[in-house]
């Protein structure tokens, strides 16, 4: 990749500095025990599987994340807490706690040239929905069948909620990680809030 910036680049003194701002400014709200919280420190990198390169990538993934290429709709968590989500037929999303940029370097550092990497951190808003009302509130938003027998922990599917695309990862019995496009983050949060207001 052609880069005009040298490694020192980031080191030199600049007149202006930039700060990252969570798209919802670190939103959090509680409905008597059910909480909706923006995850502001989650990095996302998309990893695509090169044609015919699944074996190599799988091996690399096993080494650094503990498992291979996840099937679409499935996810797993590596020992140091990164979640690898089967995003599409030949594509996955790696989510982990990390500063809001430079994620690609980390992942490519681990997986080398076994996949194609795309920075996705800023593309999304991440919300954690947790508590007894979580399922009832999602019932009003998505056609996914979230019954634990059908949608167990680590299940991760994309669907549509109030005309917005959304990724729904079940991270616990009553805990879900929701991701949607960052540009419509306010509408998305509003939709989930409304559900909680109405089921609480």
């Amino acid at each position, binding site marked *: 990749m052609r880069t*005009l*910036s040298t490694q020192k680049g980031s080191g030199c003194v*600049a007149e202006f500095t930039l700060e990252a701002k969570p798209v919802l400014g670190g939103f959090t709200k509680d409905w008597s025990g059910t909480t909706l919280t923006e995850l502001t420190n989650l990095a996302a990198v998309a990893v695509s599987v090169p044609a015919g390169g699944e074996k190599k990538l799988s091996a690399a993934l096993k080494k650094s994340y503990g498992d291979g290429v996840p099937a679409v709709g499935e996810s797993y968590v590596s020992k140091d807490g990164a979640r690898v989500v089967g995003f599409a037929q030949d594509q996955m999303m790696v989510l982990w706690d990390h500063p809001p940029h430079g994620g690609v370097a980390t992942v490519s550092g681990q997986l080398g040239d076994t996949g194609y990497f*795309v*920075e996705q951190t800023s593309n999304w808003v991440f919300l954690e929905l947790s508590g007894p009302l979580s399922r009832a509130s999602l019932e*009003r938003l998505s056609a996914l069948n979230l019954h634990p027998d059908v949608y167990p922990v680590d299940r991760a599917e994309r669907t549509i909620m109030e005309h917005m695309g959304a990724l729904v990862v079940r991270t616990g019995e009553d805990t879900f990680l929701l991701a949607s496009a960052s*540009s419509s983050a306010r509408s998305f949060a509003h939709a989930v809030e409304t559900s909680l207001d109405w089921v609480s």
Partner: protein
Amino acid sequence: MSGSMRLSGGQVDHDQVLKFTWNGNEYKGLGGDTLASAMVANDIRLVGRSFKYHRPRGIFSSGSEEPNALVHLRSGARREPNTRATVAELFEGLEATSQNHRGTLEWDLLAFNDLLSPWLSAGFYYKTFMWPKSFWEKVYEPFIRSAAGLGSLSGEADPDAYDKGNLHCDVLVIGAGPAGLAAAVAAAKSGAQVILAEEDFQMGGRLLAETYEVNGKPGADWAQETVAQLGTMPNVRLMTRTAVFGAYDHGIYGALERKTDHLSNPAGKPRQIMWRIYSKRAILCGGATERSVAFGNNDRPGIMLAGSVRAYANRWAASAGKRVAVLTNNDDGWRTATDLVAKGVEVAGVIDTRDREPLTHIPGAAVVTGAAVKDTSGRRALKRITLTNGQTMDVDCLAVSGGWSPNVHLTCHQRGKPVWDEAIAGFVPGGTLPVGMVVAGSTNGTYGTGACLAEGRSVANAVVKDLGFAASRAGAAKADDEPSDVTAFWHVKDSPSRAWVDLQNDVTSKDVKLAEQEGFRSVEHLKRYTTLGMATDQGKTSNVLGLAVMADARGRTIQETGTTIFRPPYSPVPLGAFAGRAKGKDFRPTRLTPSHDWAAEYGVSMVESGPWMRAEWYPRSGETTWRDSCDREAANTREKVGVADVTTLGKIDIQGKDATDFINRVYSNGFAKLAVGKVRYGLMLREDGMVMDDGTTARLGENHYVMTTTTANAVGVYRHLDFCRQCLWPDMDVHIISVTDSWAQFAVAGPKSRDLLRKIVDADIDISNEAFPFMACADITVCGGTPGRLFRISFSGELAYEIAVPSRYGDSFIRALMAAGEEFGVMPYGLEALSVMRIEKGHAVANELTGQTTARNLGLGRMVSDKKDSIGAVLSRREYLNRDDVWHLVGLQPVDKSKKLSAGAHFLDKDAEPTMDNDLGWMTSVAYSPALGHSIGIGFVKRGGKRFHDVVRAWDGVRGEDIEVEIVHAHFVDPEGERLRG
């Protein structure tokens, strides 16, 4: 005391007195009442007027089949027209008023129509109102419209909220009568996920209205215990007040849950919820609906369905009359007599149309068999009935049972055709039922409580077995099968007076016969010509009767005559419920750009642009019109430097060994030789050769590109690329993902743009013209190490860049850009200025890329390479698209520079009449050019590319404009493009 007609017992709470008003007068009802039962208890007879003749109407039934008792419920913005009093749950302070009358309900001026009835027979309006021609619009129709409709809306926005939701289950049981409860219990015991949905606010169905015993205890008690038991099971979801209204494909059912309609005020919660229920199987236990008999003046207040009269007495402890007669053609009708007597209500007589021995002894009642009612009297309430044998009875209530019709509605929603069953004189489910649906109980033509309980259980057991669950061994609840013999009897022919078939729409047996006489003999013709069954009750009580009268008139059987199939919804559903939350600003999601909050602070006028909110201009004090702001922003960008948020452009990351080849095929122009670090304009065609989209694509690495699309087509282009890589070239190593929201992207344009950026991009990055020429691109860092992307591209035609940072830095970044640019006189510019500058350069956007334009139309014919295969190339060569008088995109300027051009104007030769034959094309975009000091436009002109400097007319009839314009090249500013290379 809650009403003079109130009896003891029943399912109502005699200790919970609720006040309500009817046409302003206050009455008392009880908890557990419906508005109708409370009206019955208060001896309110006249409750409405019929549609056409405005005949007095009283409560006819006790359920959602009600054709007569339609009222305005609540008041103000919450007024709800056409609400069936029979399903409206009574609550403290309920307000109801009557509808569809001019003057008072008692003295309705439009009742005059009734006197004209001989001339207002079915379809009369098709035969008249034609002379003189103009009178239809001016006189006749306004008169007809003034009388149209039943209730009236408040005219105010609905203040209540609605929601939607999704439920999943193995077995959906529809209806909680004996069959439904038995089915739910059996299904639940197997461990299957069960949803039991009941339209009523109390489960039990007819068990609540009858005196039957189940397992040796009153049916209502058994129902209550069974529901309680189901309520304790985690795999069961009980839904009362929930009407399943539609059966859709693949086991999806639509259901409406009335959440707060039974409360005085919804208190901010949704009023109703529309559920999509995803079921593997559905067991329909929808019960049956009683129907009337056609005899003279059978529409008077006080003439009711026998089963409903019984329901009011047994369930709601309300007597529909002081002196009641029963007319029946079946055993069931007799129970009304026995139950009323048991409740201490006087029964004057039982008339059975069958020539048979009395079914049982009714104390104090005259029993007449083999006869019927011929006529009745009593204008606003029934006073007297006259039998076919001449006998008369003075009664204030006539309980009529013409037999029962199974509620087959949902079985028809996928066009299943019910079949006639003579044994029960009714239509039972037939044809293909919706996938996964089975039927039990009286909906299936199975009458008798014991039989319904048994069938519900056995059907459910079969269903769960089929789904792989172990059916429970528990036996069925026990109950007797009450007698239910019926002998069809439809119509008292020798009746002198009109006999109603459809009470709401005023369709009489005469109308049905007239339809037959005039050749409207197919069921569909009958319906459409007479409006039979088209009323708010959808013919629940009238269709079969009408069909029978038609069959009789044609001398055919009912089966031969046909069936009407029912369509969704089973019962009417408010539009608000189908819309759910989509109201006002929540109609659709809103997408915001990273500089949104900054712009708001700075002072901006925002505009909806598809799902996005975008800055259209940034007004400053002293500026009076948007033009002042727009002109300033455009001029400042051309003279100094301007910044615009262009994040909304679609951005697609494309990687893979075959990425180059892929892009070279989806764009019509060549991309095979684009160097790393370079950007190129790309033209994308649909396979039919029309332009789909355009944009710039940057090669960031050997196998790595980022493609930009227009804001409007971002989604469509992504879909198209995915189609190409998955369906057309499945083995290509190409991977795409949207990065539209990943990057906050800003256009920095104008002679000072480079100077500004030198302060932003990190010091060791050389962006001099030599190191970073026009159409260069690179990954860079900005403001001390924040990753970014820089593209030397220009939409404005000035020296310009687009620079991007991760969108979380966008807010911080726009502030940095503005601060850095201060010394160079930077100003933000909005969509309007952006548009002005692109028109000055003749760049096409959505106004030009209409999906009807070819590359040739745009003057980009050379961009469709014939040296390679690309989507759309072949069909773009079709003869008609290449004829020599095709439209060309050209520039237009007014001959009189003071004139203002308008988009949408059509071009005509100077002397030509404004006709389609003389049409030369149309103006697509216009702007006032601050650079040129006059109005300019671009547009499509036939052979325009060969007509430079010709003068034509821009004719804009809808705006009353007709301006002479000169055809010029579309590049108004810097045609040689020196600035952007500078």
